């Protein structure tokens, strides 16, 4: 019965199509008809590809987000071109302090427009309720305050010149450094300008709230002046963490870093180099790349399995129609094109839906703690992944169709 209907259908089609059998437009139409004829299968393929595309963009986006947090402090400090530090520093939080006079040695190198000190260290802040919170304390040059936070939400950077002044980041102020709620279990009360903290037994007054890019450890960031940071810090002989250098206009940065290294024996990196140094450290010394790599690979494999399998099934189902077309003299080339068209169509739709869902995911999470960085490279990456799945799915179907005997139409 079924075969009869199919036969009739194909005979009917045969009449209809014989008029313009060589017109590609019609052939494309047929291909689309074949693909969408079975809605369940069609949705299955698209969903498989959507899933694969989603996993292949969302997971790497979180990975990139996490990785970019490792160097977010460096990219936040946008003004200097070169960072000078101890030769053995491995990444941004690996601080090996220098002598204060190194600043003047770096300043004395030709090609340096200016050089400023920066203190960066972890200090304990004592909160109102007596709990302790480790904070990232950044000390900026007293006169110029170079290296400050990118966005000030309240107050001005120059307010740091007020006595005992500090600037805290908004995330720290609302969350980790917040005052305890009067109702037990309630939300903490965010710190405001004018509130005070205790840093290493020193009084500190909040004069501003800043917005900074979250760092890897997500500790609250406290900005203050260099000399004040030194008095907050435990007594050590050396306290200078970094020397921030701006090159003279027209100065070749690579040449200048080489000169700084030769003259002082310290390590000098351009902003990009220091970012990649930090990034590489996390790549080689943490399990993060492997974890996310496995997720992406699983997404690819599962997507390929679902989409490829369903696509192949759908081709198998339409094998009679392909047979008819073949019997009517349609060349293998045209059939191949038809399958490719189907593959490109489902691929594009799946890809579009997948990246769209990733974007919605990222957009809805934009104010949360989640690390998420969606770049155009990721669009290309998942596009390539989806294309590979589609090529794989199309290939197994194409082999089947090309090997197809037209006589199959007439078989039981």
């Amino acid at each position, binding site marked *: 019965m079924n075969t009869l209907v199919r036969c009739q259908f194909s005979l009917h089609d045969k009449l209809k199509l014989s008029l313009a059998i060589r017109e590609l437009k019609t052939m494309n139409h047929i291909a689309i008809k074949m693909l969408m004829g079975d809605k369940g299968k069609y949705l299955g393929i698209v969903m498989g590809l959507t899933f694969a595309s989603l996993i292949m963009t969302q997971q790497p986006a979180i990975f990139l987000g996490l990785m970019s947090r490792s160097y977010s402090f460096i990219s936040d400090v946008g003004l200097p071109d070169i960072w000078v530090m101890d030769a053995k520093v491995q990444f941004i939080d690996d601080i090996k302090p220098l002598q204060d006079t190194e600043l003047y040695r770096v*300043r004395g190198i030709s090609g340096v427009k200016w050089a400023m000190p920066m203190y960066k260290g972890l200090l304990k802040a004592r909160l109102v309720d007596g709990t302790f919170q480790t904070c990232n304390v950044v000390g900026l040059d007293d006169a110029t305050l170079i290296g400050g936070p990118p966005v000030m939400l309240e107050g001005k950077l120059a307010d740091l010149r007020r006595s005992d002044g500090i600037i805290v980041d908004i995330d720290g102020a609302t969350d980790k450094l917040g005052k305890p709620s009067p109702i037990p279990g309630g939300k903490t009360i965010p710190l405001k300008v004018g509130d005070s903290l205790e840093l290493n037994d020193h009084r500190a007054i909040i004069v501003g709230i800043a917005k900074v890019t979250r760092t890897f450890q997500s500790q609250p960031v406290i900005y203050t002046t260099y000399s004040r940071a030194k008095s907050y810090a435990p007594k050590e002989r050396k306290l200078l963490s970094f020397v921030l250098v701006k090159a003279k206009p027209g100065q070749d940065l690579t040449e200048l870093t080489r000169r700084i290294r030769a003259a002082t024996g310290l390590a000098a990196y351009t902003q990009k180099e220091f970012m990649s140094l930090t990034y590489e450290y996390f790549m080689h010394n943490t399990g993060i790349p492997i974890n996310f790599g496995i997720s992406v690979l699983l997404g690819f494999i599962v997507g390929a399995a679902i989409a490829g399998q369903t696509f192949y099934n759908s081709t198998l189902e339409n094998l009679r129609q392909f047979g008819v077309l073949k019997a009517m003299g349609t060349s293998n080339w045209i059939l191949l094109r038809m399958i490719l068209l189907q593959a490109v169509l489902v691929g594009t739709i799946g890809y579009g839906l997948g990246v769209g869902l990733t974007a919605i995911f990222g957009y809805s999470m934009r104010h949360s703690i989640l690390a998420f960085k*969606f770049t155009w490279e990721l669009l290309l990456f998942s596009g390539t992944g989806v294309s590979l799945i589609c090529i794989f799915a199309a290939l197994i179907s194409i082999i089947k169709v090309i090997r197809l005997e037209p006589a199959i139409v007439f078989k039981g």
Partner: protein
Amino acid sequence: MQIKYTLPILAVAGFLFAAYTVVNSNKPIPVAAAVAPPSSAPFKSFIAGAGIVEPKSRNISIGTPLPGIVKTLVVKVGDKVKAGAPLFYLDDRDTRAELAVKLADLAKAKADVGIEKASLVDTKTLSNLAEAITDRRAISSEELLKRRNALLISTAKLDSAKALVQQAEAALADTQTTLARLVIEAPIDGEVLQVNIRPGEFAQAGALTTPLLVLGNMDQLHVRVDIDENDAWRFAKNSMAVAFLRGNRNFKADLTLAYVEPFVVPKKSLTGDSTERVDTRVLQALYSFERNQLPVYVGQQMDVFIEAKDSSDNGGAPL
């Protein structure tokens, strides 16, 4: 609804939203500008150092030769004083009392001289009378000897009384010196930069961490530049130098070398922290500048750049 159109439309919308997110979420982070533009060297090759402004005379920490309670303070911060002008007086009541005693002692000693003189006249008269007698039988030889000796004793007593006057005078002069030492005077012409003592407070003698009074000659200011010992070999005495005021690079002054301290000292960090850290040793060069070029105060820090030979050819001195 046609699934044929829904999915492609959704896919296109999804892709467009993704593209929008990509463009929107990867905006460059704004750069925090410097609050005050940093100073930079006007030379191609140079040595940079931190400078601190001080008077040409350096800062004189006035000390007291004697410890005591401050009675009156006659100067205030910013006063211009001449050399020898009193700065403050220490409590002198006991010294004045002592002076009165010494004066009385002197008067007594002087009176004693009068007595001795009178008794000398007496013994001399008696002796002369005895000597005048020509007939030896009229006076016993014992009596004669007695009178002669009395004269000798009286002469010696007068000398002793005179010596006592001298002693009392010396004691008086000593007390007067002590009294003078209770008035602390300005050693040079200058300006009072700091006053850390108030009437009623105890002024300790000796070297103090907080000086009682700081005095300096402000006619000519110097800037003391710390040059890292690693850079000291690049320093040339006749090279140009320029100083910038911290906080505003528009205030700058050309410097002329006054002198170089040939003794390299440990650098103290200029934080003002009580536990000053010794980092390294520095060569200190002193430069003078026109005072009217900069609105500068004594003790203020400056960024100093000194022109140096280009050392990039031999690569400097790697550690």
